């Protein structure tokens, strides 16, 4: 018992690591999957457990997309003051009962699993082969999932798949309307490849699987749950339209007999903004 307490004190993740290893062993020895496919199966199990959380996240993400134009307006209005901008956005969420997709808990739920897998795969590579009999290869192009990714050309293929899957999954999961943040999300996987290259290939396999699961989930939910129509609801921030004297509201239908109104002559000509690209030859 004291031995167990010592292990827990030295590394709080040890019990989780053992649990991950137990599930992996079970998938390999009892179910009969090869080691690489056991990792894939373990990932799928974790993601299935997280499905109720992600379904809710996707629902609220669609809600967020619906209100994106209004939120962009708020962001523009308080461009200089980030703090104020965030507060106004939060207020807007509350007013419209938006539950933003992002929340830290589901993301953090993946973290211990990831770390446990990392440790168990690291120990895996130090163990003698007799402790984990069976093939360590994956689809014949990665010879060992316990070795570093860059020890074989197959690892590079896996890294390329990782980058693509990470890009695709951040495309589906990023609810942010902020362009700079979206760009960062797209650049990150490319930067992180250099760190990930030093991980055991099995860990990259976990990552690829979880990303592909995210993409699949995104595709399915997009098909099953079409985007809801634009909201009619007004907020305190958008003043009601002046309907008293019919002052130039383009939305009000004109009586059929009247000719369409001429644009006022004394106004400056309307500026048309062109995209920069269109001007280049």
């Amino acid at each position, binding site marked *: 018992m004291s031995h167990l307490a010592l292990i827990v004190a030295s590394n709080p993740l040890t019990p989780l690591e053992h649990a991950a290893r137990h599930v992996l062993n079970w998938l390999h020895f009892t179910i009969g999957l090869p080691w690489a496919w056991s990792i894939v199966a373990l990932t799928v199990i974790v993601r299935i457990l997280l499905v109720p959380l992600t379904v809710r*996240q996707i629902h609220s993400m669609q809600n967020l997309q619906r209100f994106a134009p209004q939120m962009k307006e708020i962001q523009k209005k308080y461009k200089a003051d980030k703090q104020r901008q965030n507060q106004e956005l*939060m207020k807007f969420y509350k007013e419209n009962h938006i539950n933003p997709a*992002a929340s830290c*808990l589901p993301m*953090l739920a993946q973290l211990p699993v990831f770390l446990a897998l990392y440790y168990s795969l690291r120990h895996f590579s130090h163990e003698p082969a007799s402790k984990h009999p069976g093939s360590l290869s994956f689809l014949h192009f990665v010879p060992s999932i316990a070795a570093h990714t860059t020890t074989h050309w197959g690892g590079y293929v896996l890294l390329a798949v990782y980058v693509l899957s990470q890009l695709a999954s951040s495309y589906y*999961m*990023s609810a942010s309307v902020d362009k700079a943040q979206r760009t960062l999300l797209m650049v990150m996987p490319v930067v992180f490849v250099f760190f990930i290259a030093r991980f055991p290939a099995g860990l990259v396999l976990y990552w690829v699987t979880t990303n592909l699961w995210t993409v699949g989930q995104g595709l399915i939910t997009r098909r099953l749950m079409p985007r809801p129509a634009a909201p009619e609801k007004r907020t305190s921030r958008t003043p009601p339209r002046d309907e008293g004297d019919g002052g130039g509201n383009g939305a009000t239908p004109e009586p059929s007999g009247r000719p369409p109104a001429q644009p006022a002559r004394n106004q400056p000509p309307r500026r048309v903004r062109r995209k920069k690209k269109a001007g280049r030859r």
Partner: protein
Amino acid sequence: MNVVLRVPAYLGIGLVWVYRATFGALFPTTCKYHPSCSEYAVQALKAHGLLRGGVMAGWRLLRCNPWSEGGYDPVR
């Protein structure tokens, strides 16, 4: 003495920074609260020390789930 007492809190803040540099960047999500969970953790640790600040940060993380409303929630 005061500085010595603050050391544990700064260790906690260091951990938050390690998280930000590694997993925070790998699994990018924007928090539904303002300030975000990690910023809240740093502020709570600074204001209340490792124990109370840590518990506050943990409680905030638990609240930051898909069923909560989110919103403006500063360290008190």
